[in-house]
């Protein structure tokens, strides 16, 4: 109990330091550097990955619908917050669209989460009765259906059909997405550590036993599904803010797969794992490996293989390697906490002394 409190305190201190660090970073670096971009996208993906982990890692529900709920979140946010003045320009084919008001960004984000959660509730009613891989394919299907509906010309005045939504409020400072993600992930962690979280894990480990312990499978699955989608929706809204423009066509199942792979790399059932993996994933796909996409000359020697697309090949090979040989991912189902490290150190010392 005591150590737990200490851990909490240390955790908070570290979080504070992180924000201070970010603040300094932001004011010292030139805004053009890739680092800040990576940090922004990374933290948003972290939130989305954690939300998916809540479902796949902690409750053992293999759902592939994440992109769909992100889509709902992103569109809800965009539709609600585009300044009225801009609408005629953006809804250029639907003479301004039917939504003629704009909400403050925060309200928009909240609505994004709520609407995603609401749809998750509806989708969950039928789908959550399905078993593992049927659930996967069904949720995948729902994501595709949602995409088709949003792109439907008939809904143009609301969703702008297939066309971009843009010019909605975005964030400049990296601090905002970090703050938002930190709060959301915090809530998820609290939920996981609560008695409900324990019920989730029980369901993951053994449905029959869990039921025999008086845990209502459907209710808890539904709860986990709705919660996960709520945060996926918020993640979608943040992603929209990060990108500055969104288009339904980009929220494909590939997006879900990428997030799933992040969760796997980080370790199913490890929040910190997902967070670390997200930053690694984003940084390496958007930044460190980019050089692989450009033809390179060392002197007159033309580097072989390097050309557009090579980055993703290398990248997916790495992922396969993790999936096959490093199945538990970076963290397994453990968490990365200061107290743990301290204990490890102490143990090591003890080991040396003995």
């Amino acid at each position, binding site marked *: 109990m005591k150590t737990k409190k200490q851990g909490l305190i240390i955790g908070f201190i570290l979080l504070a330091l992180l924000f201070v660090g970010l603040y300094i970073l932001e004011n010292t670096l030139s805004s053009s550097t890739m680092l800040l971009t990576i940090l922004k996208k990374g933290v948003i993906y972290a939130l989305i990955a954690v939300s998916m982990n809540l479902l796949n890692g902690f409750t053992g529900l293999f759902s592939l619908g994440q992109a769909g709920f992100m889509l709902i979140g992103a569109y809800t946010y965009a539709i609600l917050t585009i300044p009225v003045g801009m609408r005629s320009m953006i809804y250029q084919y639907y003479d301004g669209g039917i939504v003629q008001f704009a909400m403050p960004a925060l309200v928009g984000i909240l609505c994004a989460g709520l609407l995603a959660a609401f749809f998750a509730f509806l989708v969950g009613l039928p789908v959550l009765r399905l078993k593992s891989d049927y659930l996967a394919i069904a949720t995948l299907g729902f994501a595709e259906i949602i995409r088709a509906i949003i792109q439907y010309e008939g809904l143009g005045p609301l969703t702008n059909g297939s066309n971009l939504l843009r010019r909605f409020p975005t964030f400049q400072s990296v601090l905002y997405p970090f703050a938002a993600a930190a709060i959301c992930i915090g809530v998820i962690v609290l939920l996981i550590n609560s*008695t*409900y979280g324990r019920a989730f894990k029980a369901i993951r480990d053994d449905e029959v036993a869990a039921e025999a312990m008086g845990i209502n*499978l459907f209710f808890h699955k539904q709860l986990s599904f709705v919660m996960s989608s709520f945060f996926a929706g918020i993640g979608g809204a943040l992603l929209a803010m990060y990108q500055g423009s969104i288009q339904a066509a980009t929220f494909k199942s590939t997006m879900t797969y990428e997030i799933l792979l992040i969760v796997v790399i980080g370790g199913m059932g490890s929040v910190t794992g997902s967070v670390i993996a997200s930053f690694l994933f984003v940084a390496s796909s958007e930044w460190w490996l980019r050089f692989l996409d450009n033809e390179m000359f060392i002197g007159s020697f033309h580097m072989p293989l390097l050309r557009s697309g090579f980055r993703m090949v290398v990248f997916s090979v790495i992922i396969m390697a993790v999936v096959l040989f490093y199945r538990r991912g970076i963290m397994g189902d453990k968490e990365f906490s200061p107290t743990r490290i301290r204990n490890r150190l102490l143990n090591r010392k003890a080991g040396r002394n003995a």
Partner: protein
Amino acid sequence: MPDKMLELDDITMQFGGVVAVNNLSMFIDEGEIVALIGPNGAGKTTAFNCVTGVYKPTNGQVKYQGQVIVSNHPAGKMKALYAGENRDKYPQVVDPTPDKITRMGIGRTFQNIRLFKTQTVFENVLIATHLHRTSNPLSAAFRINWREERRMRELSLEMLDFVGLAAMKDELATSLPYGKQRRLEIARALATKPKLLLLDEPAAGMNPQETADLGRFIVEIKERFGLTIFLIEHHMDLVMDISERIYVIDFGKLIAHGEPHEIQDNPDVITAYLGVEDI
């Protein structure tokens, strides 16, 4: 007369053409230890699963403290296939999910141990206290229910203490030796605060010594928590010295019923068993 703790009326479980339990009728009075025995594949566990809502019986009903908790009659494809009797006796259909049955006060253990693999000994028990929660997800997440949380933990510790696993509460449940895993399963079931406890072959794979201890232990928990106990067992000696009444089934049918000494020298039982294994 007072309501029985548990009553099975004409319970029949049929998978396709196979009749696993055939017109099984039995009862358990409050405070009794009753055993259901029979050779392998006689349908004992199936009977259990009909009571706990894991299976939906093809026909018959289960009453708990006088109230019908499970009831069904052949329907759909079964109408034609049904091989049992009294097909029209139970018109109403009651088909609760297992968690509801547990909530009513019927706890159980499993023949093939089903602990929560990734959880510690303590967490395994703690999970079982979830069903008596009063908090909603949010109040639980934000620890507004800290009092309740504390009570849950205290109860769990108490249970572990009682089954003598408190010392290893932070070990991974699956790392425990076999016998202790069985005890943990019992502790977990107790944490759901049952009135009726169903034990599915609790002594399976134990040596005579452990079995004897287990026997004493079962009696002890019965006394301590004022439970009624319904157990399935293979070990005759255990059954004989702890249970007050015994039901014997073979090929899903009830072949004998009575007090241990009556069963001991019941020819049907002996033949049923000699066919399969020696006592």
